């Protein structure tokens, strides 16, 4: 069994401009940093291609993958005829796609990263040399959350993003996205906006914990809030690790426009850049709801193609 499966979900389209290019950067970089740390035997990267209506993602990216992807990357293809059966009127059901990634992974820990997010070295040090490696006499939490830093347009350029990810001094100069949430700040109404309520750098859940909670709620087929809802369910029962504070937000979001982004979601950074995509109701963050997933959640009954490139 691998220790960790980095799961990202995407498709072959031009969402907010060259999403395939960003996805390639993310996948190549994840495999690169895994090799750099010599932890290929403990790690895998799962890319779920959810509902590419043009050519499947695996065919588009196969000649642009770095050599480090060999034996580390798996692509799970969910074609439109299957995806459409599950996602209703949503153009891209992340919850289904992530649950598919979970079902296809072999790691002990599910680690969701967005398809445009880069993993940093502080996380690698923490996960491979500290987390569950060192015994401090108390159990490590089964769920961890880290928000992320936002590379600006110039920092995101293919030729320089590694500088900002690998250089400790430069990395800390990249603005934290939605900084308030990584401190769990008090709001004026005296409520606390929890640290896991913001933009995801990584959301890491141990396999057994994920199974106990039946994964992401598959009714939340639109954008945003599904991760907070999932973590609320976990937080009601056990501790969550504030990884963001522990590793000082060591995940990096590549810059992109937001014309196709979320609509009407004031909790998101860049809320003033109103997009068109329908979002899940904010209510799902603010009240505890039962997860109605059926036993075969994560498209367990579907025959999906898994490709090792």
């Amino acid at each position, binding site marked *: 069994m691998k220790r960790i499966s980095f799961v990202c979900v995407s498709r072959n389209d031009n969402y907010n401009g060259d999403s395939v290019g960003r996805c390639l950067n993310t996948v190549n970089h994840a495999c690169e940093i895994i090799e750099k740390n010599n932890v290929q035997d403990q790690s895998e990267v799962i890319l779920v291609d959810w509902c590419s209506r043009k050519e499947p993602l695996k065919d588009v990216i196969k000649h642009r993958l770095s050599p480090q992807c060999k034996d580390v990357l798996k692509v799970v293809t969910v074609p439109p005829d299957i995806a459409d059966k599950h996602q209703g009127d949503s153009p891209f059901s992340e919850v289904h796609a992530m649950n598919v990634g979970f079902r296809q992974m072999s790691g002990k820990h599910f680690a969701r990263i967005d398809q445009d997010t880069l993993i940093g070295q502080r996380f690698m040090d923490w996960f491979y040399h500290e987390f569950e490696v060192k015994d401090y006499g*108390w159990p490590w939490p089964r769920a961890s959350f880290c928000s992320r830093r936002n590379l600006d347009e110039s920092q995101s350029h293919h030729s320089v993003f590694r500088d900002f990810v690998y250089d400790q001094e430069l990395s800390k100069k990249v603005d934290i996205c939605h900084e308030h949430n990584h401190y*769990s*700040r008090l709001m*004026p109404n*005296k409520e606390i906006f929890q640290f896991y309520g913001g933009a995801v750098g990584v959301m890491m859940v141990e396999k057994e914990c994920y199974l106990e909670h039946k994964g992401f709620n598959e009714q939340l087929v639109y954008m945003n809030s599904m991760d907070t809802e999932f973590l609320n369910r976990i937080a009601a029962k056990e501790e969550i*690790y504030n990884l963001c*504070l522990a590793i000082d937000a060591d995940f990096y979001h590549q810059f992109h426009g937001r014309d196709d982004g979320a609509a009407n979601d004031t909790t998101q950074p860049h809320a003033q850049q109103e997009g068109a995509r329908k979002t899940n109701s904010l209510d799902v*963050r603010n009240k505890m709801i039962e997860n109605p997933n059926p036993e075969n959640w994560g498209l367990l009954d579907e025959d999906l193609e898994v490709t090792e490139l």
Partner: protein
Amino acid sequence: MCNIKRRYQSKLDSIHKYLDKELDYLDSQLYYTEQKHIDNLTMEYSAYKFDNEIISLSSMPEPAIEEIIRINKKITEHTWGVILESEKVENINVYIAQMNKVQINARQANFFVVTDSEDILLKLHDTFNWMNKVFYICPNTYNQNIDDKYRPSINFHCLKHLEKHISTPGSTYMNMLKEMGGRQVTVPNPIRVFCFNSKRLVPEG
């Protein structure tokens, strides 16, 4: 007829209340997405050196005693003392996490911070405020004409009125507070502190 009107009115009032609450909530979340940093300490906040020798209240000049009284006015029963000797702070996030835990358990909690580092004080002041409007770090300076030699003692006399403290390991003031008895001093575990029991944040069904 009057009864029906009253019932309608009461229903309308409760709907208004509900909508106002919802709007407040959305508004606060909108504020939440903005990041406005505090880049400079205002005159009410200053870092002062620590000192092993504490001057007793009876030996302090009147302005120093007045200063203690003024600082104490912003201190409540929910205020925690925070003692941070900069050379022992390896990672400020450890202390931020511990302060977060305090606020999760007691949302009205604020902090009286004693540190010898302006950077630390600025970082905490920036972190524990709301949109530069609501401040959770208590001011520690009103009269700037007080001789600096009294500042460590002023800080300590303010700290000793507090029951609960967070501290860097083995700090001088922590040891003095412990000797006095009746004070709780928490030295956060630098790894464990990031484990959050968030049950209080979880919404109800």
